[in-house]
């Protein structure tokens, strides 16, 4: 079984979010970029576990991004994986990103494609299902648990209002969330090994973005907290009703 793990680079969760160019571009000044947590902690680690247990023969990592995403993909390789592929394109359009992943995957015969449940920057949660459609594969989203026996994959996943356990034959696309694996920390050996692992740069397939971000906006600043006397919870209830209008 060959596994492809989709890795996206995102600003560190504690990064200050700000915009430039008249609020049309993300200000990456002083921002540290990390591997999207769902991709790193769950998708990638589970893929590595499957290889360690002998269920998988190869784990490849793919990212759609320009050269500035290479440090992050190297970080991912330090955790494990046999090779990395960077598709040299830059887009926030989920369709164009998915198309690039699907076009590459098509020629490589992956049996299992793992991604995160969403990227914490653009929060689309769309790439996994789109890749599945473009590859004409099944998609199981928001998965908590993945087991593989032969060519059958069993997952437990979130569905609207509950949980479901499914079985499905390979090939398959899965989006991962907490539960799938336990986060790992790269060790020195991994970091050294990552330096010599192949990082293939691939020219993007033809295709155009179907959407683009025209502007950003910060939410209105909180007008400041209103402190309520701890003895007077009737006042809090009154405000929640008549001022905030939430009860």
């Amino acid at each position, binding site marked *: 079984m060959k596994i492809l793990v989709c890795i996206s680079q995102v*600003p560190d*969760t*504690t990064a200050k*979010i700000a915009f430039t160019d008249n609020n049309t571009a993300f200000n990456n000044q002083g921002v540290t970029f990390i591997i999207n*947590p769902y991709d790193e*902690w769950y998708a990638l680690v589970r893929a590595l576990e499957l290889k360690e247990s002998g269920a998988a023969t190869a784990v490849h990592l793919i990212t759609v991004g320009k050269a500035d995403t290479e440090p992050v993909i190297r970080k991912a390789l330090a955790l494990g994986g046999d090779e990395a592929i960077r598709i040299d394109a830059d887009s926030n*359009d*989920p*369709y164009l990103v998915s198309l690039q992943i699907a076009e590459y995957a098509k020629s490589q015969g992956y049996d299992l494609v793992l991604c995160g449940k969403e990227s914490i920057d*653009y*929060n*689309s*949660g*769309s790439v996994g*299902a*789109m890749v*599945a*459609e*473009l590859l004409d594969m*099944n*998609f*199981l*989203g928001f998965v908590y648990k993945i087991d593989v026996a032969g060519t059958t994959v069993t997952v437990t996943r*979130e*569905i*609207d*209002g*509950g*949980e*479901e*356990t*499914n*079985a499905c034959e390979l090939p398959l696309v899965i989006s991962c969330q*907490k539960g799938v694996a336990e986060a790992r920390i790269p060790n020195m050996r991994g970091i050294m090994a990552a330096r010599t692992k192949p990082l293939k740069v691939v020219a993007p397939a033809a295709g155009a*973005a*179907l*959407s*683009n971000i*025209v*502007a*950003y*906006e*910060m*939410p209105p600043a*909180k007008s400041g*907290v*209103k*402190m*309520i006397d*701890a*003895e007077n*919870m009737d006042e*809090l*209830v009154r*405000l*929640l*009703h008549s001022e*905030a209008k*939430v*009860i």
Partner: protein
Amino acid sequence: MSILVLVEHSQGIFKKKSLEAVQYAAGIAKAMGTSVSAVAVGNVSDSEMQTLGAYGAQKVLHTTDGRLDNFNSRAYAKVVVAAAQKESSKVIIGLHDTTGKAVMPRVAARLQAGLVAGAVGYPDLSKGFVVKKNVFSGKAFAYVNISSDIKVLSLMPNTFPVVKGDGTASVEKLEVALTDKDFSVQVKEVSKASGDVPLSEAELVVSGGRGLKGPENWYVLEALAKELGAATACSRPVADAHWRPHGEHVGQTGGTIRPNLYIAIGISGAIQHLAGVNGSKTIVVINKDPEAPFFKAADYGVLGDAMEIVPRLTEAVKKYKANQG
């Protein structure tokens, strides 16, 4: 040319968020001078389908196929695409929930349509087709223009209040050719959270952190939640310590929620926690430390010991409800 909207139901009753999506579609239809067609899947009575008229749908396309009783993204996407083709829809709407997040990207990919996932506003048609959505885990908004001929949107639940009007929708059968391959995911077991509102959809949420000291103190929080009809949530260390089930953990690594009201009890307000909740409309923080960072993100704050304040708040809610009759 009508606007198409995928509606979801639970045992034959449409979910509130789907009524919201129909109403949203009706707003777009009005701006574009067209009508709304809904597409429903599975076992729903004709009279229930007609009620979608009260939220702005003129027509409901209904696909019944026993195999669709279990959710399956591939089959559902085919149904939506078939409906969209039948109605020549240029705008297709679903919800940004676990169903919509699996179906709408497939629909978009199949139709080569641009997708805005998690829309929180009506499209601005004066500048193309520009839709507002949350980015950076609720820390900012982006305005996204869709340039393709067909547009696909998934609406963030709880974005707009739902208002019932009058009107009834007509119901039509929609036949879709589905193959065995569309149902090749086997369902082994389904467990629905019974009765309670799922956390991801709850309008009111009461959440506890390490400040509650231990699972034995959770009864105060549960009593408040019960009185409010709220769902319960917790911070990550609380779930890690098994004081509460993991499904309740919110934040960057847990669930992201956007309720109307989030009451945080004994939670410090670390940035990773805020990432999951700062889309909430109103935040109440109860904490004994005046320096707790959460107060900076709060609308209302109460300083003091949760074990004393929370029961008092529960009583106040009870009193308020009694006065409301």
